[in-house]
Every structure is written in C-alpha cells, then in structure tokens.
C-alpha cells in the first residue's frame, strides 16, 4: 500500500511541476493545486499509514493513528486554499494591469534576456 501512495504522490508532483513550468497563469495555478495535494498527502503520510484507527478517543480502543500530522495538514488545506485564492486574484490583477495572462506579463521574450 505504501508503494501505491508513493506512486500517487510522485505522479501528482510530476503533473504539478509540468504545469508549473507553463507560460500562462491559470496553468500555473492548476499546477500549484496539484503540488498542494501532493504536499498535503506527504505531510499526512509522515504519520505513517494506518487503517481504521481514527484519532477519536473511545473507551475500548487503545490503538490510534498519529493525530499530529492530521492537525497540521488540516490547517495546511485551509491555508493552501487562501494561497490559491491569492494567486488567482494576483493573476486577475496582472491581466487587468498588463493586458495578458502570461506569467511574465508579456508574450515576447523579456528585453534583458542575455542567453
């Protein structure tokens, strides 16, 4: 099972990185979302994988999964929403100010590229 999760995180990262390298803001935001999934899953997995032992205390149960990564990831999910929102608004603002949704603000090569 651990191998499957590793594959999933790897695939999400690869997809995210590819989209991150695209030239348009919307693709970059999608790429960031994919990387967010991968990172959240990775953080979550740092508590190792456990089935059927949620950290809800009950009298007859003694074995629970690690609750700490869960608490961290819970806030990370909400914060990454805020980040996605911020980035997409930045993209809108950039489009309004620069007239283009290219990540560099213009489609042509930047003037001071030297190589």
């Amino acid at each position, binding site marked *: *099972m*651990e*191998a*499957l*999760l*590793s*594959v*999933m995180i*790897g*695939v*999400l*990262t*690869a997809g995210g*990185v*590819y*989209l*991150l*390298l*695209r*030239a348009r803001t*919307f693709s970059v935001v*999608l790429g960031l*979302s994919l990387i967010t999934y991968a990172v*959240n899953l*990775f953080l*979550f*997995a740092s*508590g*190792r*994988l456990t*089935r*059927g032992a949620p*950290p*809800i*205390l009950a009298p007859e149960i003694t074995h*629970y999964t690690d*609750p700490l990564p*869960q*608490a961290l*990831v*819970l*806030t990370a*999910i909400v*914060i*990454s929403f*805020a*980040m*996605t929102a*911020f980035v997409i*608004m*930045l993209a809108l*603002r950039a*489009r*309004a100010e620069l007239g283009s949704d290219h*990540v*560099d603000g213009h*489609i042509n090569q*930047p003037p*001071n590229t*030297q190589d």
Partner: protein
Amino acid sequence: MTLPLVILLPFIGAVLTGWVARLGRMQAAWMAGLFTLLAVLALVPCVPLTVAGETVLWRLDWIPTSGLNLAFRLDGLGLLFAAMILGIGLLVILYARYYLPERDGLGRFYAYLLSFMGSMLGIVLAENVILLLMFWELTSLSSFLLISYSYRKPESRRGARMALTVTGLGGLALLGGLLLLGDMAGSYDLLIILTQGEIIRAHPLYTPMLVLILIGAFTKSAQFPFHFWLPHAMAAPTPVSAYLHSATLVKAGIFLLARLFPVLSGTPEWTWLVIGAGLTTLLVGAGIALFKHDLKGLLAYSTVSHLGLITLLFGLSTPLAAVAGVFHIFNHATFKASLFMAAGIIDHECGTRDMRRINGLWSFMPYTATLAMVAAASMAGVPLFNGFLSKEMFFAETADFSSGFDHGWVLPALVVAAGVMAVAYSLRFIHDVFFNGDPIDLPRTPHEPPFWMKAPVAVLVAICLLVGIVPALTVDPLLRMTVASVLQAPPPDFDLAIWHGFGLPVVMSLVALGGGLTIYALRRPLFRLAARLEGWLDARAIYEWVLAEMLLFARWFTRRLDSGSLQRLVLVLLLTVLGLGVFGFLGSGSPLTGTRSLLPVDGVSVAMTAVLIVVTLATVALHRRRFTALVIVGALGLLVALIFIQFSAPDLALTQLSVEVVTIVLLLLALYFLPQQSPRESSNLRRTRDALIAVLAGLGAGALTWAMLTRPFTSISDYFITHSLPGGGGANVVNVILVDFRGFDTLGEITVLALAGLGIHAMLYGLRLPGLTQDAEGRPWNWDTHPAIMAALARLLLPLALLVSIYIFLRGHNAPGGGFIAGLITAVALILQYLTNGVAWTHQRLSSNMLPLIGAGLLIATLTGLGSLVFGYPFLTSSFTHVHWPIIGDFELATAMLFDLGVYLVVVGATLLILIHLGLMHRATHPHAEPTP
C-alpha cells in the same frame, strides 16, 4: 525596582512627544524634557546602592533556554554613562529648542532623540550581552534617523547611510564576537562573564573573538580605519552632533572596551590591536583636524582623535591607564558637547561655519566667546581646565608603559606629537574664530544668542572648570566608583591634583603647549601643503569604491540569475531543488527502503491509484482547455479526500471536501475573466525538457515518500492522545490539538487566512476586467436567469445546511468536525445562495462587508487566549466543564470552543470575502444579466 523604567521612559516619551508636537514646539520640548527628567527620577532610587559599591541587578526571564534574559545592571560605569546620557541629553533638548528653525515642528526631532537616548541607556545598563547588542543596533538605527534628520539634503542622506553601513557592519561582527564570548564564559550575563577572564583569555578562540568584538567597538567609536564615517555624520543638525559625538554614540565603543576590560585586556593581542588602532586614530584625527576649515569638521576630527586617545589608554591595560581613560571619557564629553553647541551658536548667528570667513567674533558675542574659549582650552589640555588633568595622566601612563621596552621613547614621542597638534587646532578654534581681524563677508551680522541657548554651554563649561580646579572635591569619588566597576577590583591609588611636582608628564605637557603655539604660528605654509595633499589616502574613497563594486557585482549576479521571467526563475528553483535532492540521495549512503512492515494492498486502493494517475495525466494533457482541466482537478480533490478517509483521517476528509468545493467555485469565477484556452506556445523541445524535469521531480517525491513510509518512527503524539481527554476535555484529538495543545499555531494560521482575505480585498479594489461574451467554441454566453426550481431548493437548503454546520461545530471537540470544517460548510451554504439566486438577491439579504466578521473572529480567538492569562495560566490554556443539555446530551463546555468559534468566524469571513468580491465583479461586468427576482 525602577531600573527598566530608566530605559523604557525615553521610548514612551518618544511616542508622546511626537504626538504632542502638533500642539506646538514648546509643548514638544517640555514633553521631551519631562520624560528625560522622569528617567532621571527612575534612576535615582538605584544610585545609593551603586555608590556604596554594589551592582544593582534587575532580571526577568525572557528566553532562558537560549540564555537571553531581560536583565539590567547598574554599576559605577553604567551610572557614569547614564548620568552623561541623561544630563547632556537634557541640555541638548533645551539647546535644540532654540537652535532648530521656527518652521521645524520638533516632534520628529525629539522623538528620534528620545529613542536614541533610550537605546543608549539600554547599552550602558544591559546585563545580558545579547540584550546589549540589541540596544547597540537600536542606536545604529536611531542615529541613522537623527543624522538624516534634514533628509532633503543629499549629504545628510549620504552621511547617515555611511554611518549605518559602517556601524551596522560592526554590529554584525560584534554579534559574532559576543556569541563566542558567551559560549566561552558559559553565560551571556555579564555577572558571570566578568568573572571568567582567565578562562576566556586562555581559550583557543580568544583571538578571533577579540578581533570581532574590537571591530564592533572600533566601528562605533570611529577608530582607524573606520574613522571616516564620523565627519560625514556632521551633516546632522548641530544638537545631534553635540549629543552623538560627545557623550553617546561614539562612546558606545569605548564603553564596550571598558565594560569588557577585565575579561579581554592584558594579552599581547589586546595590547597591539587596541594601542595600534588608538594611536593611529589619535594621530590621524589630530592631523586632519588641524587643516579643516569647517568649524564642525575640526571638532569632528578632534573627536576622532580624542576617541583614539581613550582607546589607546585602555590598550595599555594597566589599572592606572583605565583610571585615565574613564576620566577622559568624562572630560571629553563635557568640553566636546559644549564646543559643538558653541559651534552651533556661531553657525546659527553667522550663517556659515567656514573659519576662513569667521573672524573677530569676540567683539560680537563676548559671552559665547568666553565659554567657547574655556572649553577649547580644556580640549588643548591647558592647566586649570579638566582636559589638562586627564591628558597629563595620559602622558604619564604612556611614558610609564614604554619605559620597559627597547625604543621606549617612540610611543611617548608620538603622543606628544598628537598633543602638539591638539594644542594647535584648539588654538586655531580660539584665535581664528574670535580674533584674527574682522569677519569676511558673513551672510548675517552675528550677535549674542538667546540666553537659553547659552545656558547649556555655560553649565558644561562650569563643570569643566570645577573639575579642572578642584578635582579631588568633585570628580574623585565618581572616578573611584567607576574605575572599581571597570576593573572589577578596588581602584588603584591615584591622586587627582593640578601639580604633582616636576616630572616627565609636565615636560610633555609643556612641549605640547609650546609645540602647538609654534605650529599655529606656522599655519599658513602648512595649509598650503595640506591643500596639495588633499585626497591622498582617503578612507572614504576606498569605502565608496568597495560599496560601488559590491553593488555592481550584486547587479551583475541578479541579472545573470533573474532575467525578469518567472518561467525561468521557476526553472532555476526546480533545478536547484532537484540537484540538491540528488546530491542528498546519493550522498546519504543509506538504503532507499527501510525496515518497517507494510500494509497489504487491496483492490480498492489499486483502483484508486489507477484513477488518480489517469486523472492527473488527463489534467496535464487537457490543461490548455481550462474549463475541462478545472473539472478534472475537482475530481482529484475528491480522490485525495477518499485517501484521507481510507487512512483514518475523517477530519481531513471533511476539510478537503469542503475546501475542494470552495476552490473549484473560486477558480470557475476567476476563469470567467481569463481566456478560456491556453495557446500552444512552447516548442516541442521545451515541452520535452519540462516533461523530463517533471518526471525527475515526481520520481524524487515518490522515492522520498517511499523511503519515509518504509522507515519506523517515533512520534510525540502519545502525549496528545493520553492528555486529550483529561487535559483538553475532548475525544477528537485532532481538534484538541488545533484548539488547545497547539492553539497558538492555529491562531497564527487564522491570522494568515485573514491577511490573505485582506490582501485579496485590496487587490480586487477598483479592478475592472471585461467579462466573457462567448465560450471557448465561440457560442454566445447564455443570459438566462437563475433556474427557478434550483433557486427555490437552494433557499430551502440554507437553514438545513446552517444547522449541519452548527452541529459539526458543536460536536467538533469529540467527533470529526470543528471550527474549520463548520466554517467551510457555512461558507459553501451561503455561496450556494449566490450561485443559484444571483448576487443581487443575496446581496439584499446578506452584507458583503465581511471585514467585521474576520475581525470579530480574530478578536474572540485572541481574547480567549488572553482570558487564561487573567486567571494566571499561560496564554491559551483551556478549561472545560461537563454540562448536560436536553436533546443533545452530555456535553463538554470548553473555553477551547470559544477559540474554535473565532476560527469559525475567520474561516467564514475570509472565504466569503474572497468569493463575494469576485461575484460582485461579475455583476459589474454584466449588470443587465441580473434581473431582480
């Protein structure tokens, strides 16, 4: 204990003075004076103990694990400096009130001055050396503000920047030195450091530590080769110069030498470095001062020279030299402050400071002239004035020190040469300015300044005279007390008298006086020679060259790295991360797979993995068709939620689900304002390159996950699990961690959320973007009103959804749920109304101003935390009790729940703020598309 108040009061005064200045100049001056007096009053109760030879200590643990405490001490040395800082500060406040022009509001000036005063007091009263360094940096900053006070003048800005660069650099070195020192002594508290001299001097790292600390002290005290910033700091208004360059800023370095004297001194390294720097500075400063035509320039270089003299004395390392050093600190402060003030009066009255034009002022302002002449005579070391006493001790000590060496005459000869030059430039100050013919072409006709402008000078000059004539009655006890604290031992035998009998020091003094007269008589050919040598070995030019080269390099480096393209920067970042990752993998040498036993694979998991891979690949393949890609990403979010469910994380699954809904709605709304398709721009080669990088990154992330998951681990979570119920009163450990154990983190996180909301609010302000008129395939936009059945259903759903969110919120402490999830559910329920009923309809019923909601949430969360302080518990300690509610059942009522309410409100507020503003933008682009229902 009132010791911390001494430091705090000037800072409070700075704020109040800046505020009161709107009422007028007088009020600002009174307020500044009042707070300085209050600081004096706060100091008074501690004085008797210090005078009795004790060290007054005040301590508050701040970060004790790092050895950082809010600790202050008052001993003789601290008292001498505090008295000078407050006393001269008071005089400067009075003087500046009359010196600065009428149009000047004075609020900013006094605010800077008081904060500088507070920082300076912090240095001299600090018990912890790290604390000392913080105040040290604060003096750098506040003196920057003071020097750049007339910020419209380029030379003020340049002078201030230079002072900040040099002293800031020194501060950095000092940080390193003090950390080493603390490490050697085993504590950052002076109380312990001062007893560890033997161990520290024998430590192998003694020399690097000494060099670092000396760089700090020398930059601050303008010792060669860092002396060049001080004359440029003269661009400050004269009251500032009188304060900074007499008793305070530049004395901070000397203070440090005196403070660490018992620990650092006595080694050959100390002797060579400190004597070398002091002697060079003494000679260079005196030499340049002689040829300055600017009145303040002369005083500035003479300050440099006198600082060198004091440094040299501390370099001699003998107890008697320390006595002379401390004595000269005091004397220099009094005569130099009065000289600067007199120079300011002359500048004020004549409109120029050029000594080639200012002549014969004796007949215009006899009182000021008398005062200035006394102070200058003290500076020259003429008998009956205080400068004579310390200078004679200085001559005696250098002669005494050198007597045991071969070529022992060199040092005394050189210091006499410096004495000759000091006499010459002092004489020039007196003769050139007050006599020597008539003034030449002055902008205005000088006359005596107002009484209160002369009064501070008179006070200081009176001290010079009193100390000079009856030293044993005035300064003797102060000196003994200070020296005892500098040496950390009983003071040596010394006798302050004007006449010690005929000996070498008297001869040296006489030679200095006679030589000075001769040099001054020969000044005209010497000035011509100096004019020809001008610009030779200019430390400032070297400084500016280094600075320019560094800027050029930084610019070149930045241009190489950042061509202004985000794509390129992201590429550089990713390649760096990949490179470091590969390096780490290959370099670690440990196997990829660990020893932990693995979970079995089941069919559902395989299917889920397959779906996730397909969906991710589809997102990438279809990303140019943005709408489609977005829908697919939504599916990915649901899959991630399923993974959370599978591995025992119901809270995460709930959060992920609701966040996914909000995110997709947000991106859909935003997509409306963006092109519907991405053009195909990248070349095949580039896409292949990016794909390769992506695959490498994916392989890396996968391998890392695999390596982590197969390794055994220990967690600190057992603590949370065992203490969740008894300590936090909740069975849902994740929620208890969020609102109780790690509540402070959560408070930070909701603050970030609130800030993101505010940032978006600001970013969308006044934004106008054209909306769509047709979709990606060119079909016209559908302007149908919102479907009636869906609208009605959504309205019915709202109370139900809100009820669910309340339920989720209330049970969150014991079962999956809590503030975050409930907040998201509420937000989704409200957004649903916007989507189905339209912005206008919802807008009439729900305010779009979410800022109060966010503010209330943050306030509740913070106040809950502060509430526990009231009851004497640490910040954010929760308490709880069991209550039996009808229908709902047994129920814990915890203060953590109140905190969770804050979380809930911030989440609802921030989420709605973000989405509503986008919704309002839609309405602005298509007002006709929104018929009122």
